[in-house]
Every structure is written in structure tokens, then in C-alpha cells.
């Protein structure tokens, strides 16, 4: 072998070694590269702002002037002693309960009806989903008109029955009912489809066995469908809690001023955050409220999670059912 040949050989060996090395790096680092966009954007645009909220909340901080002195817990003390926070907290929970509880019950009912062996399945399923594509702001403007205090359709109907008109935009509970109606309009059908999917995953033999034993439709719904649906119901409650406690759009649009009513009858916590931050330009106090709401949501999510695990666990043990495909 000549020296030249040896040299060429050595070079090609080095080249192969290099490409091996590159390939190994490729295998090792590519996965991290592929997941990095999510973590980067989430860290910068999601997690950092959320954590930084705590930092802003212990400072004097103006929308225009920027960061001021460290004030400790002063913003929290002010906010918690002013009463507006508690009012907003009450309103938020009231609107949330008025929307989520009837919504889940009605959605279960609609799902049960859609679970019949219907003609034109797709048509009915699409029909219940229609409101989902209407933006909450648009929904709010439509229902604002329907719930008009003087000439609204709903009050006309109420007066037609010989009753006193309801002051939807003045009284506390009626305003909450109106806002909850907007939320329910948009989400009931969506949740009904989630429940329907879970209902269709229930093995049909269960029903047949029950029917042979003489159970009627209502009985099978209560004793078979509902228990098996419990995990998915809790999942829906969890997601609607996280969203529902941050309700803004419908309450913001319920009147022109957007402060949640002349005496804050329907001011929610996010509306209050907006008022403090961009109305009063007090970023410190807005952050204090945001941080408090964050803690409330996390607390509820954790409680929910614990309950879910427990109930999902027992349901699994009782029946050992896995969802199959959907028809």
C-alpha cells in the first residue's frame, strides 16, 4: 500500500466517523429541539408573566410611570379591605354557578336525547354546536338586546304574562342570570357532544342486559350511563371552572360602560383587574387581584383533581370499562 492510499483511507474513515458522530447528535438532540418551541414560548409568554405578576403585586407600579417602590403586601391589604374585591369574588362565583350547574344538567339531557338511534344524526349534532362559532362578544350583544330592561323581548314576554318586568341591568341576581344565559348559550351544546361521545363509548350489552332484567330507559340512564359518565363530567366541571372564574367578555359587554354596572352589580374579578390596571392605571393592585384569583383557581383545580382521581378510580374498579371508538 502506498502512503497516498493510506492517507485517502484515513480521510474517508474520518469522514465516516464524523457522519456517525453527527448522526448520534442528531438522534440525541433532535427530540429536545422539537419540543423546545413549546417550552420557550410558554416560558416567555405564559409562565414568566404569571410569576412576574407576584413581583409587580408587591410594588407601586403605574401603567405609564412603570415600577415604583417596594411596598410589601400593601396592595393586597388595600384590595382586600376595599370591599370591591369581595363583591367581584361573589359576582364571579354567582355567575359561575348559575352558568355551570344548569349547563351541565341540560347538556347531559341533550346528550341523552342525541344518544337515541336518531335519523339525521349529524344534522342534530351540528345543530346543538351552532352557538359555539358565535364569538362571546357577539353573543353578549345579541342577548343584551333580548334582555333589554324596557323593550327587550324577554321582558315583553314576561309582561305579556301579566308580570312585572325584570330589571336585568339593575338588579344583581337578574344581571347574573342574563350573563350566565350567554355563557350557557355558547357552551351547552359543546359539552353535550362531549357527554354524547362518552355515552356512546358505554358498551351496548350493558343496556341490553338491563333491559332484559326489566329496566326502562330512565332506569338504565340513571344506573348505567350516569355512573360511567362521572369522570368525564368531572373533567368538564374542571375545565369550565378554570375558564368560568376568568369570565370577562360577557360581563364587559353587558352595558356600554363596561365597569360591571353602575354599582358593580356584575363586576367580575377579571373586570376588576381590568379596571384597576387600565382604568386606574394601578398595575400593582391589578396584579395583586390577578395573583389572588390565580391562587383561588389553583386551589379549586387541586381539589377537583383529588376528587376526580378518587371517583375515576372507584368507577374504574367497579366496572372496568375502557372507552371504545365512537360510531
Amino acid at each position, binding site marked *: 500500500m502506498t502512503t497516498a492510499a493510506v492517507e485517502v483511507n484515513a480521510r474517508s474513515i474520518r469522514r465516516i466517523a464524523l457522519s456517525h458522530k453527527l448522526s448520534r447528535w442528531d438522534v440525541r438532540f433532535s427530540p429536545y429541539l422539537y419540543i423546545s418551541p413549546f417550552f420557550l414560548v410558554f416560558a416567555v409568554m405564559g409562565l414568566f408573566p404569571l410569576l412576574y405578576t407576584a413581583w409587580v403585586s408587591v410594588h407601586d407600579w403605574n401603567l405609564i410611570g412603570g415600577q415604583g417602590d417596594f411596598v410589601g403586601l400593601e396592595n393586597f391589604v388595600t384590595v382586600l379591605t376595599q370591599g370591591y374585591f369581595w363583591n367581584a369574588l361573589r359576582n364571579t362565583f354567582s355567575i359561575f354557578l348559575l352558568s355551570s350547574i344548569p349547563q351541565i344538567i341540560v347538556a347531559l339531557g*341533550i346528550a341523552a336525547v342525541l344518544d337515541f338511534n336518531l335519523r339525521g344524526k349529524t344534522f342534530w349534532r351540528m345543530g346543538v354546536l351552532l352557538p359555539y362559532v358565535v364569538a362571546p362578544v357577539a353573543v353578549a350583544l345579541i342577548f343584551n338586546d333580548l334582555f333589554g330592561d324596557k323593550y327587550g323581548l324577554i321582558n315583553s314576554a314576561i309582561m305579556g304574562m301579566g308580570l312585572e318586568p325584570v330589571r336585568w341591568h339593575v338588579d344583581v341576581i337578574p344581571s347574573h342570570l342574563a350573563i350566565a344565559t350567554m355563557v350557557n348559550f355558547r357552551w351547552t351544546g359543546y359539552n353535550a357532544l362531549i357527554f354524547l361521545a362518552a355515552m356512546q363509548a358505554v358498551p351496548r350489552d350493558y343496556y341490553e342486559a338491563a333491559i332484559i332484567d326489566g329496566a326502562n330507559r330512565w332506569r338504565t340512564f340513571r344506573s348505567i350511563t350516569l355512573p360511567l359518565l362521572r369522570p368525564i363530567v368531572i373533567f368538564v366541571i374542571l375545565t369550565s371552572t378554570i375558564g368560568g372564574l376568568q369570565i370577562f367578555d360577557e360581563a364587559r359587554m353587558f352595558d356600554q360602560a363596561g365597569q360591571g354596572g353602575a354599582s358593580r352589580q356584575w363586576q367580575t374579578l377579571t373586570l376588576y383587574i381590568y379596571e384597576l390596571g387600565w382604568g386606574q392605571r394601578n398595575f400593582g393592585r391589578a396584579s395583586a387581584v390577578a395573583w389572588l384569583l390565580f391562587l383561588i383557581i389553583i386551589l379549586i383545580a387541586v381539589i377537583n383533581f383529588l376528587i376526580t382521581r378518587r371517583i375515576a378510580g372507584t368507577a374504574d374498579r367497579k366496572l372496568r370499562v375502557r*372507552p371504545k371508538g365512537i360510531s
Partner: protein
Amino acid sequence: MSKTIIGGHDRRPALWVYGVLIAVLLGSAFPIWWSYLIGSQDASALNQNGMMWIPGGNFIANAATVIDSIPFWTALGNSIIVSSAVSLSVVMFSTLAGYAFAKLKFRGREGLLIFVIATMAVPTQLGVVPLFIVMAKLGWTGSLWAVIAPAMVTAFGVFWMTQYLRDALPDELIEAVRMDGASMILSFWHIGLPAARPAAAMLALFTFIGTWTNFFWPFIVLGPGNPTLPVALQQLQAAFYVDYSLVLAGVVLSIIPLILVFIFLGKQLVAGIMQGAVKG
């Protein structure tokens, strides 16, 4: 479906079932129809004659007034740009990450995936104050970037694509391509991406609708001159609170695009929600 027909679930339902469904359908459609009913009236006629049950002939005139008084075309264009950009980015990054989580082996995979799933329960919307400070520092307030950037990834998207690719893409396929000497990114491109297509389309659709209807953050960060459609609707309400025929004409204009999407892709939306429910 089982073969025995004893009664119960396989039998065609009684008439009352359709009665209930028709009532539900009316509840879904009525408010939308109502917005056109009022939006097509003349405000003064509305005040004089009270309730009217037939659409009037004034919709075009009302729509023209709306388009003149709010930056409607800007808002429509912005909504299209923002929703498309966000959908594209969410789908791209979610598919990449989902492919890695579902099909590639790497240290910390399980832990990182659990982290992603846990972030779905984190209300990041509550970071608005610092997010606004960041955007102001970057000089992005009032620009569409401020709306697009924070929405470029979603934990749900990553979770959704991971779930889908886990079942839809056989490991042997990837191994075969890798044996042929394809690099990681090429095997993603030729095997992962095509397999992900159905779930990616679904994710794009839901992300598009979610972004299109979003109000809170765009309302805070975009100025009145450069709104998205929901923000423009808020301006319309501020301008014409008393004239509901104009406000609702604006509502009709703003909901037409997604109603069209619904007419063409409503079936897919239904399927997507039902699949998500079984998997989630």
C-alpha cells in the same frame, strides 16, 4: 353496534325525542336569527312599531353605516391574519413536539410530558399585567404581534398531537426510514407529518375558531385603530349603544365568516369534539 334488537338503544325513538331536539335547535338558532331580524330594521321604525317578526329591508344600509363608523375591513383582515398565523404556528410546533413525545426516546420525556399536561390547568390569562409590560417594552402594543406571539403554542395542541401520533404512527415505519439513513428531521417530514395530517387539520380548525372569538387580550393590547373583529364590535357598542339595529347589523357582519366555516366544516367540528372527549 350490536345485532340484537330487543328495544332500547337500537330502536327508532319516539316522536317526543324529535320534539325535544327541535326545541334545542330553535334555542341554538333563534338568537342568531334575531340578530339578523333586528339588524335589518330601520331604527326609527323599530321605535314606532315595536316588535317586528319579519326581517326588514334595511340590512345593507345598516351594514354600510357600520362599515363607515368602525374600521371593519381592518378588523376583518386582522382577524384573518391573526387566526391564520396562530393556527399555523400552533399546528407546526404542536406536531413537532407531539412527534417527539409520542415517537422519540429521550431522557426526561415522561416528566416533560406531564409538565405540558399540567400547564393546561394553568390560567396564563392572569399574567396580563406583566405581559402588557413586556409588550410595551418591545414596542408591540397596538400591533398584531402582541396578539400572535403569546398564542403561538398551546399545551392542549401538544397533548392532542402526542395522543394522536402515538396510535396513528407505527414505530416500524420510522425505524425503516431511519435504517435507510434519513436524518431525524427528514423522517419527521416524510413519515411524521403525513401521518399527523388528520389531527393537525382538526387542531388548526379549533385553534382558528378559538383565536377568532378571543376578546380579553386583544382588547387590552390592541388600539382602537387596529382591532380584531370582537374588539371592533366593542367599539361599535360604545358608539351606537341606543341604536340596536346598527349594533346587531355589525354582529351579523362579524359572525358571517365563522358561520360559513360552520356550514362547510361543522361535521368535522362535531367529530373533533367527540374524539377529543374520548381521548381526553
